[in-house]
């Protein structure tokens, strides 16, 4: 397993509802990222289709694995890279049950998927109207170490990042479609999740305007000590490269040993109180 590798944050503006165009863009950005020796290329939430899809989701969702994941697997094999992207998933057991899913593919093909657990359905968001929440955290063992996937609003729930860290992930990948009015939350919480878990966190946000919502970009790679190792532009498409070096974790973990100091007895209490909120 590699101790050190480069990650590309592919902050793209998706063509809403046009999977073919978005797959082509994913290939272009992957090729560019490989020129900079990036081994993991990360795209935003629902980057296969765009975020604001509403009723068209039923037409655009696919099984995973399926034709679009096969197309992205092909890109991953061709360019010998790991790729994370987002897409609407159609359940293979029912006919119109959808998930907001993050997919990880690599040079050897399909690696895994994570179905978003926290679906925002407030303010401008209507995800629960369309999606069923996932029930499984997503941690995948790869040649780049254990990678944990989360999606956007999941970032607001420290339990999930903690869980994937405790399952061994040292890199948390958060794909996102965050509109501008929420920037402060994300800028704070991305650093917080990395620091409290002494892990790397790669956050990749969408840019562009969909249905009047302006997505702010600002993708970033954050180190276990909260340092911003790479940051993309606000509002415009961008591709930035940062380096993950797992050997940076130990000194931080020894300096602020949050994992050593975990108090599991709180978790039962949390569950009890949350159920009675």
């Amino acid at each position, binding site marked *: 397993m590699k101790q050190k590798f480069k990650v590309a944050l592919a902050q793209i503006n998706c063509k809403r*509802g046009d999977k073919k165009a978005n797959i082509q863009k994913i290939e272009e950005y992957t090729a560019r990222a490989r020129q900079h020796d990036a081994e993991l290329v990360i795209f935003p939430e629902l980057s296969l289709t765009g975020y*604001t899809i509403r009723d068209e989701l039923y037409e655009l969702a696919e099984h995973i694995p399926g034709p679009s994941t096969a197309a992205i697997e092909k890109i991953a094999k061709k360019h010998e890279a790991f790729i994370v992207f987002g897409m609407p998933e159609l359940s293979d057991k029912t006919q119109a049950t959808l998930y907001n899913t993050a997919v990880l593919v690599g040079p050897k093909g399909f690696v895994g998927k994570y179905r978003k657990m926290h679906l925002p359905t407030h303010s401008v968001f209507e995800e629960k109207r369309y999606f069923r929440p996932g029930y499984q955290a997503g941690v995948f063992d790869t040649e780049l170490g254990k990678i944990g996937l989360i999606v956007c609003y999941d970032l607001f729930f420290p339990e999930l990042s903690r869980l994937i860290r405790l399952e061994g992930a040292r890199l948390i990948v958060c794909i996102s479609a965050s509109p501008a009015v929420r920037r402060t939350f994300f800028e704070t919480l991305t650093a917080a999740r990395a620091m409290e878990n002494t892990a790397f966190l790669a956050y990749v946000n969408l840019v562009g*305007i*969909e249905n*009047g919502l*302006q997505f702010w970009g600002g993708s970033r790679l954050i180190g276990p000590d909260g340092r911003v190792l790479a940051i993309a532009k606000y509002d415009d498409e961008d591709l930035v490269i940062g380096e993950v070096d797992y050997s940076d974790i130990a000194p931080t973990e020894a300096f602020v040993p949050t994992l050593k100091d975990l108090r599991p007895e709180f978790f039962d209490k949390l569950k009890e109180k949350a159920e009675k909120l």
Partner: protein
Amino acid sequence: MKLTQQVLDLDWEEVKTKITRFIRDYVEKVKANGIVLGLSGGIDSSTAAALSAMALGGDKVLGLMLPEKETYNLTDIMHAELVAEKFGIKTVTIDITPTLEALQKSIPIFDPEDKLCKGNLKARTRMLYLYYYANKLNLIVCGSSDKSEVMIGYFTKWGDVAADISPLMDLYKTQVRKLARHIGIPEEIIEKPPSPMLWPGQTAEGEIGLKYEVLDLILYGLEHFMKVEQIAEQLNLPKDLVEKVKRRWKAMEHKRRMPLTTKLQYRTVGFDFRMPLT
């Protein structure tokens, strides 16, 4: 939350960037040739016109000046021309008086004493001209309505509010003033009392009965789920007054929506037919 003028402060450069980006993105996505908008010489249309010009270039913005004899005001026309010149916007002036007179004559129940109905006819007539130009020249109609007006329904349904995009609709009037100042709208336009120009001597604040500085804070409080009592106490206003604004705020929803239908089938416009736009 403390209701002071500061809560209405935004980063005006960022707001300008977002609005111009929004206008440009929309015009590009729908493959339009540019923007057409009514240019009254007032603060809202001046600001919308200037932002459109900043987004697309003035040569892609057409300002229609649509005066009529009852509300004719040379200062307003000069203000509209001032903005057009400053931001390089093309203008066309059409006197809509003959159209209004013909319309009035053709309506059997037309009542010249009913100034509201008569005034609304003017706003809706202006809309007809804007949409003719939009239709003919493949332009997008840019509305100038601000959030204060929209929240209390201070506009003509299907009249001045009718547009394809309304880039100022999420800014209260006092916020539009700040944005206008930031982008260089001449001070005399910002400072003059706003009027929808439906009848002579009409001023928005006179008709609403509140200064925008106060109205905007009440509306801001309501937007943020504050209780009437809290708003009244903080702004040192009678509870009845805030209650009255709230009643109007709620009652005007019919002016903010597409026509209501009753659900009869599988997916219904206005209920569960949910398509993205651009």
